């Protein structure tokens, strides 16, 4: 890579390192073309992709005939191979939609089942007794429900990273911390400028900027769609009370409602709320939101109304002005392809979105498939990539070896949250307060990072300020004395 140059020439540029952008990058890497991805944050999977229910959804409730429904159906066929080839943690838990009264039961029969049938998903009707037998933790007040067998849970960070690593393995390039601030449309090329002063010239640009896709379009002079953020708050509990299936309420007109979802690595995810907000960076959790979650889940799984929480977070999903996925060329140039308005189904549909967009781009540019293409990723934590070491993260028993393996991976973390998602360190009871200094040291040792420059997540989230002139505290190491 031309490290000194500020100008980069590629065939295809993907903007946005979320699950959709990375899935597209992976498919584009099949072609004999130079491809690159720009992400505004210091890690992939930082926007909508990081804060969601982590469900691989069958799309049983999608509006039949939409592109979303079609791609969700295609994704169902693609997932098994993606999970196997990329070694992604996944559990097919199944989902139970439970009716709390006869009216909800009627909604299932009248609306849910026919929609699912139209989408090619078979729902299995269950009596109250059958549900309580399979899921004894469910509210005894239910009157019945349906099982959606194909629903499962996955690690969204792992998925996004695996897509990206697979693309990198096949020659794609990744530019983190690059926020686009201008797009010049020329007849044969698009020129994309970033806040750091780089310029990327590409024959085709894929706009996978998630929540910011409308703003990116506007930079190119395209005002054809707009996206509004909808906030969803979640909370995580480590007590699972036996929850082994996804428990869904019967949806209302406005929302799919608040769910109870097992987490692939243990614990239970409760949420989301659905609140339209104006600020695309508003990720604050609120007392009211957390209360709404408790009320919602309490109707499904009573024990979850009071289960103690270990973490809370909020995510923003993009609601489009069209009500369906927006996958089409821009109104200003055929060389700018929008992949926007992916709502909350981006993770579930990602393999099919990648395939669909990959094919579209390949045909548009008349690309040939690459002769050497690696079909999968090596297995994680294989012995070659691993070494022994003492425990660093006390709460989760994560060793130095595991942290080093992450820091030396093809897509190493640049931030502490990035390291957290790759290793599980800092996710335990103390949230990293005990081991963080050791992790800072390992960042310094492996990446030569000045600890003062190390960030938690977003640009500007530095942990430390300049060194003091006087020191307090006991020396960290034997023999060291305070200066």
């Amino acid at each position, binding site marked *: 890579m031309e490290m000194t140059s500020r100008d980069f020439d590629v065939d295809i540029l993907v903007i946005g390192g979320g699950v959709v952008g990375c899935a597209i990058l992976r498919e584009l890497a099949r072609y004999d073309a130079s491809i690159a991805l720009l992400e505004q944050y210091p890690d992939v999977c930082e926007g909508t992709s990081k804060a969601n229910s982590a469900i691989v959804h069958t799309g049983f409730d999608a509006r039949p005939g939409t592109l979303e429904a079609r791609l969700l159906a295609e994704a169902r066929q693609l997932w098994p191979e993606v999970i196997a080839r990329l070694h992604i943690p996944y559990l097919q838990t199944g989902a139970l939609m439970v009716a709390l009264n006869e009216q909800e039961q009627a909604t299932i029969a009248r609306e849910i089942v026919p929609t699912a049938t139209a989408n090619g998903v078979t729902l299995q009707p269950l009596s109250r007794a059958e549900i309580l037998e399979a899921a004894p933790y469910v509210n005894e007040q239910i009157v019945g429900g349906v099982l959606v067998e194909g629903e499962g849970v996955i690690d969204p960070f792992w998925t996004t990273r695996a897509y990206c690593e697979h693309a990198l393995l096949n020659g794609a390039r990744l530019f983190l911390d690059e926020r686009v601030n201008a797009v010049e449309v020329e007849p044969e090329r698009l020129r994309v400028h970033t806040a750091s002063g780089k310029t990327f010239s590409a024959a085709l640009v894929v706009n996978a900027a998630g929540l910011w896709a409308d703003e990116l379009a506007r930079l190119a002079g395209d005002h054809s769609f707009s996206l509004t953020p909808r906030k969803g708050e979640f*909370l995580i509990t480590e007590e699972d009370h036996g929850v082994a299936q996804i428990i869904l309420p019967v949806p209302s007109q406005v929302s799919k409602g608040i769910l109870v979802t097992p987490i692939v690595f243990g614990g239970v995810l409760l949420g989301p709320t659905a609140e339209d907000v104006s600020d695309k*960076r508003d*990720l*604050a*959790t*609120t*007392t009211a*939101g*957390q209360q709404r979650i408790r009320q919602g889940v309490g109707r499904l799984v009573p024990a979850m109304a009071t289960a103690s*929480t*270990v*973490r*809370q*977070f909020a995510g923003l999903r993009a609601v489009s002005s069209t009500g369906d996925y927006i996958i089409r060329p821009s109104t200003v140039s055929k060389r700018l392809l929008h992949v926007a308005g992916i709502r909350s189904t981006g993770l579930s549909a990602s393999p099919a979105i990648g395939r669909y967009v990959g094919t579209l781009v390949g045909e548009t540019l008349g690309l040939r498939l690459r002769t050497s293409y690696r079909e999968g990723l090596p297995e994680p934590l294989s012995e070659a990539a691993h070494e*022994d*070491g*003492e*425990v660093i993260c*006390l*709460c989760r*028993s994560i*060793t*130095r070896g595991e942290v080093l393996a992450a820091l030396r991976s093809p897509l190493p973390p640049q931030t502490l949250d990035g390291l957290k998602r790759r290793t599980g360190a800092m996710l*335990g*009871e*103390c*949230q*990293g*307060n*005990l081991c*963080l*200094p050791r992790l800072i040291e390992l960042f310094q040792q492996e990446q030569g990072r000045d600890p*003062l420059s190390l*960030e*938690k*997540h*977003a*640009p*500007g*989230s*530095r*942990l*430390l*300020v*300049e*060194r*003091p*002139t*006087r*020191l*307090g*505290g*006991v*020396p*960290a*190491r*034997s023999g060291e*004395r*305070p*200066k």
Partner: protein
Amino acid sequence: MRKEQMSVHTLEDMPLMEDLHEGEVYDLAIVGAGLSALSLLHSGAAALGRTVVLDYQEQVGGLLRYLLPADGFEAEWELLRDFQLPAGVRLLLQTTAVGLLPASAAEPTHTLVVRRRQGTAQLRARQVVIACGGVECPREHDAIPGTRPAGVMTPVLALQLLARGYLPGRRALVYGDSRYALATARRLEEAGLEVITAAPTSGNGRSVRLCGTIQEICGFPRLSAVRLRSHDQQSVEVEADTLIYATGLLAGTHWLKGSGVSLTATGTIAVDAHYRTTIPGIYAIGAVIRPQLDHESSLRMGKEVAALLPGGVL
């Protein structure tokens, strides 16, 4: 500035893996080398037979060692400063117990699964004293609403950063009125930070600048303010780039999952008046049975259990 150097037990003292003698059976294994464990050793554990002590950290003294010496912790500092490892006691630092398999038909002694730099090993002992303390309760545990910015931490992180020569921020709100929280506030002040102390009204007689409960954490990507609500329901926004959240300790019992050692509803180890857990031969002392930031009973418990252990001395 420092009057005396504390006694130092470091990695260099640590025997190599080969010296672990995996097959060997100890009379006593102590999990944790914090204040309660040191108090136990100081009170005559040498009389208890072949003893091994292990700790996750690089030095003895537990979480409090990052703060000491400090006002209000004179006895703790004295113990730590003057501590000498009794002859015959093996100290394994940077050695973490990740599991406990109590005695069974297959194995008549208790087995600790421990992790060290060289790998995972098993330590066998006839008696085990769990003195592994706890971890500080973070903001997430109490579900404090707001953003998730950099600059929110518990005292142990702030103190470790200071010890390594870094400042955690410039203007810190220290939330909590334990002796530990207030000593941390003083340490931050000495290091050059502007410090505001705050706590809900607790009536323990220690003075903080603001009385109120945390309502919201504000700012992104770095903390910009903390919103407090006073007892008269007034909302106050305190500007700060750092929040030191010092509300309590959580017993470090996650590694005992599946061991059969009974826990209480709050996650501490259940013990009787003689520090006996529900499994014969396994005892627990210190913060792991009574989690408090001030470790008020740790020294006493170490001393008492030393006398209670079979072979112990009064």
